[in-house]
């Protein structure tokens, strides 16, 4: 190790990878992906990975991506629930990796719900 910059570079690189090694806290924004058999069959895994990738690339702290079981409406999978502290839960349906980018950019970063993917009464 020849310089402190080298040490800092290692720290920054590994820290991003270890972001998920922290239990979710009450102050965190939670992105929960339905990962039951139905979700996985509909393509939830690439969606989950896309979320993780985006959170890492944008260095979003306090945003945790977790998984859950079946959300009950298997025909609308992959489903994603977003919990922002102090706000109502938002449920998104039929999410693709492309939609993930939109949700992160508009909802998580800018605070605007992406209405085209939000679940509706007539779904």
């Amino acid at each position, binding site marked *: *190790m*020849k*310089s*402190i910059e080298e*040490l800092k570079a*290692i*720290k920054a*690189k*590994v*820290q991003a*990878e*270890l972001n*998920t*090694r*922290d*239990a*979710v*806290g009450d102050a965190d924004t939670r992105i929960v*992906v*339905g*990962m*039951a*058999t139905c979700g*996985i069959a509909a393509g939830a*895994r690439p969606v*989950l*990975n896309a979320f*993780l*990738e985006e959170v*890492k690339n944008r260095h979003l702290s306090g945003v*945790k*991506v*977790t*998984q*859950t*079981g079946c959300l009950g409406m298997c025909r609308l999978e992959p489903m994603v629930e977003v919990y922002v502290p102090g706000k109502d839960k938002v449920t998104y349906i039929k999410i693709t990796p492309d939609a993930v980018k939109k949700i992160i950019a508009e909802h998580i970063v800018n605070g605007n719900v992406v209405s085209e993917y939000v679940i509706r009464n007539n779904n």
Partner: protein
Amino acid sequence: MIRNHVLICGGTGCTSGKSRNIYERFNTLIAENNLTGEVQSVMTGCFGLCALGPVVVVYPEGAFYSQVKEADVDEIVSEHIIKGRIVKRLLYQETVKEGEDGVSSLSETSFYKKQMRLALRNCGVINPENIEEYIAYDGYAALAKALTEMTPQQVVDTLKASGLRGRGGAGFPTGNKWQFAKDVPGDTKYVCCNADEGDPGAFMDRSVLEGDPHAVLEAMAIAGYAIGSDQGYIYVRAEYPIAVARLEVAIKQAKEYGLLGDNIFGTGFNFDVEIRLGAGAFVCGEETALMTSIEGNRGEPRPRPPFPAVKGLFAKPTILNNVETYANVPQIILKGSEWFSAIGTEKSKGTKVFALGGKIQNTGLVEVPMGTTLRTIIEDIGGGIPNGKKFKSAQTGGPSGGCIPASLIDIAIDYESLLAIGSMMGSGGLIVMDEDSCMVDIAKFFLEFTVEESCGKCTPCRIGTKRLLELLEKVTNGSATLATLEEMERLCYYIKDNSLCGLGQTAPNPVLSTLKYFKDEYLAHVTEKRCPAGVCKKLISFKINEKCVGCTLCARKCPVSAINGKVKEKHMIDKEKCIKCGVCAENCKFKAIDRV
């Protein structure tokens, strides 16, 4: 991209519970399910809740699975990892949320709530065999800060102002020790780490080395910079194979990354660390004996002064600190002395790690701020005494310490308060005893240990402890008189005052403290020839009472056929044959056998 981290405890406790097999099963299943790169399994250091091991924690959900078996791994993978459904039946009971899916936070459970993990901060968090994870959690940043922003004197001053004191037992101020060694002129100086943890029941230092070995290496390099040394030695017992292996990996990695070796951070500072294995002699935990052993000689203490800071290892100025002391140093350098001195009591700063053992629900490793009461440790964190028994005493400081009676359970634990009641902090073993423990027998146990471990160099310790043990044996076999007790006390003070090193000077403490707080038990042994707890075999006998229905079970269980009697008639114990093993009383379903 990693979405789930699976942390498996790789401490000695969980390893003996086959946690390595669990780790390997996870790896197999992760590969089989094509989850490589998405799910990462990691062997970590000790989580502290050894009683519930093997422990597995899955993040980011923070699900704390306890007493996991290899066969449970399939379910955790197929349910939790693949489908996101937490396996409730394996969760640590206190973290289960009734009727809900999530888990409640581990830091809110009674075991962790009142703890403060500084020395153990990375244990159960990082992979100790991966230096990059240590770096991610601020590792080696303190060394960088010390080397580039601070003078050696500023490092020493920070340590002094922090109030950090030696965690190995005596509690000497660490900064002062470093100052002495710094002020002694000389080109060659040494930095030593005492990892010869010898107290029965103590495993704090082992857990730090197993869970966070780089913290100790970093602190030793900082110490080297402060006093002007380029060579460190870690003296660790060979009975700690996992700790030794992780230290070896850590030293190798630190050298590869240039964090040990020549010209660290381009500052021209050189520092190297070598491991020396001890063969397990208790006396080698004493500083002068330890250094004699590193030099390649038989581990025997030598008189002080000269102190090691002046004339230590190979007759050069040397500092010797304990593992836990070192584990605190990097954070003090990083966060400053005020941060550290704000924790704890007036004279004892920071936290202390205790190895909680004996008659306690949550056997394990706990770290609390100095000044925490014994009651908090035993009742809240430790979960109390199992089987509804009553708390009788806690033994701190191992063979050098003393017994704290139940009447002093509200004592705030720090260096001074423990000394004041005739015990000592020691390295941090904390053994809990319930009403079934005989205090004379406990004193005898510790004295047997010191008699065995006395190195034999000085007479007061070699012969004095042996004679003291013989007097104690008289008490437990019923041949003692009141004069014996007086003689014991006199001998205790003689050994304390005249022994060469800490081993002999503290060896009588278990006897003195039990004599002080449990005099009535000694008197019962001496005057009534009775052991109130029913432990000392010479003083107890077994008798069959009127409740006996003649089921013959005791007669069949007795290993020496000392019980006679016909079916459906009251049985009798032949006192000549009886070896007082107690098997009959344990097996009797009618409570018909009394221990008197």
